[in-house]
């Protein structure tokens, strides 16, 4: 990897100050960043180690929600008693992702900030607009089995591979950020961006901004939620398609629903019309299929991934059926 200068931030203000300069990256778990640096895809001049910042707490909020410090590891979050009890969807999604080693290293903030990426992004011998703007997209006509069917642009068809973020999207989490202009909050749904004509930017973060926490609202759908992940291996692989579902039921009626898709778009995929399609409906295949239609509206595949559209439709129905039966213990 390219040589760089290393600094350890002692507090949030210091970290933000460092990062206001160009060529500076924060590093915490490093599981994606170090990997990309080895391939010369990321070439920072300076790394700011933020692992000593006091952002490792999981705190109950006065209104019943949960505040998760940005440095809480994926493993610690999935095992946290309050997460398991109130937000089992989040625990299930986290444990479906990566490996135990990576979950020990990776942080909550870092999971959000892993790059939206594909193998052409890693391969510096190929064209990639995300890595090298206006160089083209080798994936469009290449091996695009893992790629997006929703939200892609002519410039980029890579997906955001996180499982955790799909659950956070369904739970309508909020991202807390500290930056040169002070603190602000970003709804998770707006945190990751679609590539459009600037695929080099994955998120809404501005220069120098640091994620300090993720907040969950009080409603965690503990009784009826399910995370379904379909992948090429039984474990430790990115999703071809994943579905996060949270339902609230009164008898056989759905009073509230939240759906999100992973593995199919440059960001966790939410369509509010899909949630609305389920509200007031009876649980069952007919209602779930209608929600699937809404979620997949406008889906467009490529040579090797068109199967994902039908796979996603079936996965949505199955995930809803599982959630309706009750959260698996």
């Amino acid at each position, binding site marked *: 990897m390219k*040589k760089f200068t290393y600094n350890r931030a002692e507090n949030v203000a210091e970290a933000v100050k460092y990062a206001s300069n160009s060529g500076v990256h924060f*590093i915490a778990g490093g*599981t994606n960043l170090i990997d990309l640096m*080895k391939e010369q895809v990321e070439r920072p001049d300076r790394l700011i180690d933020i692992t000593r910042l006091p952002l490792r707490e999981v705190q109950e909020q006065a209104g019943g929600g949960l505040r998760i410090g940005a440095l809480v590891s994926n493993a610690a979050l999935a095992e946290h008693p309050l997460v398991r009890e109130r937000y089992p969807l989040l625990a299930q999604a986290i444990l479906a992702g990566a490996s*135990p*080693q*990576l979950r020990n290293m990776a942080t909550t903030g870092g999971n959000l900030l892993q790059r939206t990426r594909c193998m052409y992004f890693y391969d510096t011998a190929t064209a990639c607009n995300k890595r090298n703007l206006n160089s083209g997209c080798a994936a469009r006509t290449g091996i695009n089995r893992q790629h997006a069917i929703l939200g892609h642009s002519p410039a980029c068809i890579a997906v955001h591979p996180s499982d955790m973020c799909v659950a956070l999207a369904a739970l309508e989490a909020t991202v807390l950020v500290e930056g040169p202009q002070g603190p602000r909050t970003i709804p998770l749904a707006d945190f990751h961006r679609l590539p459009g004509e600037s695929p080099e930017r994955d998120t809404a973060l501005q220069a120098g901004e640091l994620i300090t926490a993720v907040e969950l609202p009080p409603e965690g759908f503990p009784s009826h939620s399910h995370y379904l992940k379909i992948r090429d291996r*039984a474990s430790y692989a990115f999703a071809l398609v994943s579905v996060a579902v949270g339902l609230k039921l009164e008898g056989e009626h759905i009073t509230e629903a939240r759906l999100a898709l992973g593995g199919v778009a440059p960001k966790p995929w939410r369509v509010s019309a899909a949630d609305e399609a389920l509200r007031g409906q009876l649980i069952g295949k007919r209602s779930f299929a209608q929600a699937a239609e809404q979620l997949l509206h406008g889906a467009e595949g490529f040579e090797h991934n068109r199967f994902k559209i039908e796979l996603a439709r079936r996965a949505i129905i199955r995930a809803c059926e599982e959630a309706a039966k009750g959260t698996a213990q």
Partner: protein
Amino acid sequence: MDDASVPLRLNVNGSPCQIKVEPWTTLLDLLRERLGLFGTKKGCDHGQCGACTVLVDGKRVNSCLMLAIMQDGKEVTTIEGLAAGPELHPMQQAFLDCDALQCGYCTPGQICSAVALVAEGKANDRASIRENMSGNLCRCGAYNNIVAAIEKAREQL
């Protein structure tokens, strides 16, 4: 070694260690190239194979994806640090007893990962062992015997 080197203090396998490292040195390269601990293996060097698995403050991690300098003040345990003198760690003995390897290249990572797995309390049944060992690949395909070895060692840990 240029003047970019920074001082680092670690405890490696129970012994304190003070050394200067360049910031871009991974923990894996520090262990192998600077400390002469060749038990930890470099497989993919991208966190996909698990051959570089070691324990940092008791937790299993991929040492190939960690900067050594970020581990300042931490305790690192490698395969060399598991045995008590001449006596093998129960997980090492179980891997031998169960013939849980062929070429042996993934074995140090498998054993470190398995020791952490038992400590995490997730070695309860075969399905859980398989799922929670998925970060360690074995290209010889010794998986069945690896699972058997973990089941055997679990009883003694």
